[in-house]
């Protein structure tokens, strides 16, 4: 941490000197409009990645970021968010972690699309292949690191990724995008939007087929990906106190997996429908009601096991400016998961179906102690988890904005990770389904069984940050944290010696630093960079009864990561964007560090026609990013080249 304070001190010095620029602006005020319009201006930083005075570690990817990242999949967009680690497992599986504990079943990061949780309660993670929405739909992606349980509920242990789609008003007219490359066999996106009195709407469709990556062990990788998707969004567009939004989509696809040793290919399909009603009760208070239904189904083709999850969610949110200095938000929610599974010799759940209901009540007060200068935000959520009763998740945040250029904030909170079906109900009989205990006479590694007595994991965090605009062209966003975990998940041999199972026998501390810099280096050139440092110390809280226990997700998050992006407007209709990124090694998993480059070049021929060329993983050796997972064989990422043509009308 000494390092962090040295940095702070080094940055504060020159920042103070910039305060003097104010005197000239008053002169500007008394110029005529004509002369102002005639004034040559230098460019400023177009967008800093953070929210200026939010009392939390927040990064926002806006449309320009999303378009210019040279990403071809949603998870790849998140590689340039400090504090996150994105590791690709194979062609259609990713592990994304915030502030530690990364894994395909990473469990401690909540992901939402328009307020709909896409965090799968069965195994506590995100099946990213089921949420491959077109980038054209996305308005912005907000990433909040640190516990955010008050507003978002359980599982927002180390952060929330909130994907916000564009309103139908913003996507009027037609758009066609087609692409192909060495990995991307084809990508086709269609969208059409129109507006009438009362409502605006859009419909879209996507078809995608991706080739396999490379095997790390010399077999056919088999991780091809194919998916088709259709969807819509409608928004009310009439003035007045009431507004509504309705959105939905449906998809089907096949996600391949490398033999392990049997093929691990999944067929999948699903659909969702979400409606939101916002009503302004009075000028100081507004009410929001949201409901959604979400269904996801997937089947392992080799062994025939099926996972099926249906979610029904109702949420009410009331926002009220109770007095000039108090802004009160409270809400309540109810969510029901209907889980069904067909077991196989390899993978099953006991019980095989279950209905669980989670309900919550939360309140948060934003108290402006000194208007615009000192804000205290306190919140508390009570969540009723099945089998574990009420879980309290408090949070306290303070933000001090001494001048419009600086915000210092600090926060402390407690969050809970609810047990999932893997922790409590799993029956995994090894990759071949022949583990001795599952199949009499079988051999190999012992099977893994869920433990019905597994308890929620807990974290208490302390974090602080400093966000500043050093000049009109340079902004910096800095955060440090320390998280203390209790009841962390361990995998141990059960007392019966017949199987492995899950316990809460570990505890630990993680510390980290995240720093992002955005610099408008010239009128036509932006540079964005970031570093993420991480350190963990996880230990057993009690002496394990049996030998060789494992703490889940230990050493899964690189100790250091960095990225540097260059966004260059070469000419009015040519853009060249380069991202350099690297991550340190995961020693205990035998995954070496890597550094690589992504490049995107775009030529806008005219208002309606654009050509893009994207290259990914261009630099450095072809690399693995996470190491093998319990259920899959990791593949090695190929260098990827894809060309895209976009027509709008």
């Amino acid at each position, binding site marked *: 941490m000494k390092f962090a304070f040295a*940095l702070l001190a*080094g*940055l504060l010095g*020159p*920042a103070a000197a910039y305060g003097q*620029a*104010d005197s*000239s*602006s*008053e002169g*500007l*005020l*008394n*110029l*005529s*409009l*004509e002369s*102002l*319009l*005639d*004034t*040559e*201006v*230098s*460019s*400023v*930083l177009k*967008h800093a990645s953070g*929210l*200026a*005075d939010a009392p939390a570690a927040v990064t*926002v990817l806006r449309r320009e970021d999303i378009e210019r990242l040279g990403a071809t999949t949603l998870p790849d967009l998140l590689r340039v968010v400090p504090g996150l680690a994105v590791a690709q497992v194979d062609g259609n599986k990713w592990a994304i972690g915030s502030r530690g504990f990364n894994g395909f079943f990473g469990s401690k990061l909540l992901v939402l699309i328009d307020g709909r949780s896409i965090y799968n309660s069965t195994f506590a993670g995100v099946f990213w292949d089921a949420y491959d929405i077109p980038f054209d739909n996305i*308005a912005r992606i907000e990433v909040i690191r640190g516990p955010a349980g008050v507003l978002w509920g359980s599982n927002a242990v180390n952060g929330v990724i909130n994907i916000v789609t564009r*309103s139908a*008003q*913003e996507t*009027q007219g037609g758009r066609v995008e087609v692409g192909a490359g060495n990995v991307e066999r084809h990508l086709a996106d269609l969208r059409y939007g129109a507006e009438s009195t009362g409502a605006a709407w859009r419909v879209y469709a996507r078809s995608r087929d991706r080739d396999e990556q490379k095997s790390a062990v010399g077999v056919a990788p088999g991780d091809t990906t194919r998916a088709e998707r259709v969807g819509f969004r409608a*928004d009310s567009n009439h*003035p*007045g106190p009431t*507004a509504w939004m309705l959105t939905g989509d449906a998809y089907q696809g096949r996600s391949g997996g490398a033999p392990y040793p049997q093929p691990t290919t999944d067929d999948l399909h699903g659909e969702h429908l979400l409606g939101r009603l916002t009503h*302004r009760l*009075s*000028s*100081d208070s*507004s009410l929001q009601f949201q409901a959604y239904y979400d269904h996801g189904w997937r089947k392992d083709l080799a062994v025939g096991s099926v996972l099926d999850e249906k979610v029904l969610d109702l949420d009410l949110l009331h926002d009220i*400016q109770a007095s*000039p200095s108090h802004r009160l938000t409270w809400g309540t929610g109810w969510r029901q998961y209907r889980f069904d599974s067909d077991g196989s010799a390899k993978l099953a759940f006991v019980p095989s179906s279950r209905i669980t209901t989670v309900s919550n009540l939360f309140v948060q007060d934003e108290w402006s102690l000194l208007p*615009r200068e000192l804000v205290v935000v306190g919140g508390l959520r009570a969540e009723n988890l099945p089998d574990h009763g009420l879980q309290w998740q408090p949070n306290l945040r303070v933000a001090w904005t001494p001048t*419009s250029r600086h915000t210092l904030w600090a926060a402390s909170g407690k969050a809970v990770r609810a047990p999932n079906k893997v922790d409590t109900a799993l029956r995994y009989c090894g990759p071949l389904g022949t583990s001795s205990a599952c199949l009499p006479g079988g051999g190999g590694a012992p099977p893994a069984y869920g433990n019905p007595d597994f308890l929620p994991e807990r974290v208490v965090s302390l974090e602080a940050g400093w966000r500043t*605009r*050093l*000049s*009109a*062209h*340079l902004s910096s966003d800095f955060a440090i944290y320390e998280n203390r975990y209790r009841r962390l998940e361990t995998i141990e041999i059960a007392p019966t010696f017949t199987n492995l199972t899950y316990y809460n026998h570990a505890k630990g501390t993680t510390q980290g630093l995240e720093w992002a810099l955005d610099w*408008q*280096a*010239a*009128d036509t050139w932006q540079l964005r960079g970031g570093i993420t440092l991480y350190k963990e110390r996880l230990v057993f809280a009690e002496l394990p009864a049996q030998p060789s226990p494992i703490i889940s997700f230990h050493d899964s998050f690189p100790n250091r990561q960095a990225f540097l992006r260059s966004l260059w407007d070469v000419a009015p209709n040519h853009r060249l964007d380069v991202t350099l990124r690297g991550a340190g090694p995961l020693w205990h998993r035998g995954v070496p560090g890597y550094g690589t480059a992504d490049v995107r070049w775009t030529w806008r021929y005219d208002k309606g026609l654009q050509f893009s060329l994207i290259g990914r993983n261009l630099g450095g050796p072809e690399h693995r990013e996470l190491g093998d997972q319990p259920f899959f064989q990791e593949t090695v990422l190929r260098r990827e080249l894809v060309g895209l043509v976009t027509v709008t009308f």
Partner: protein
Amino acid sequence: MAPWLRLLVFAGCLLGLASEVWCAVPESEVRAAIVVNFIHYVEWPDGPPPTADIRICIAGHGSTADALLGFNGKAIHGRRVWVERAPAASVIGNCRMLFVGELSNRSPIDWLREVAGQPVLTVSEGEDFLPNGGIISLNRSGSRITFDVNLLAMRRSNLRIGSQLLRLARDVHGK
């Protein structure tokens, strides 16, 4: 800024690479001054005297929004402007002007809905603002700032905009 970075910028200036960036008038200040200047060209239906104090409200954040806040309490051609941040919905109606910063937790559409039908001059930046019912949108063309006006939205708000302003606009929609 770390010393090495300052050195880098200084070296850049010597080479003429970064001079424009670090020396010319900051864009956000010019944008903010232009926004404040609009008040001279707009007539509100209840007709406040052209010398009265004027209240500008800021929604969201951004460099222009920050620069506008810096003008709070200052006089412009003899008229005092009061600029305040994040007004509660009840008081937005009392604002003569609502400036929507580029960074906001809500979409510009939500802010526009708050003031729909009320005599509030809505100003923002970017391409999406006018199609969604905003009145004036600032843009940049080369090294100069330009603005577009949406006459349809202006009429819906019962405001009148002087022809001189329309002449200075780059684009006038809904004529």
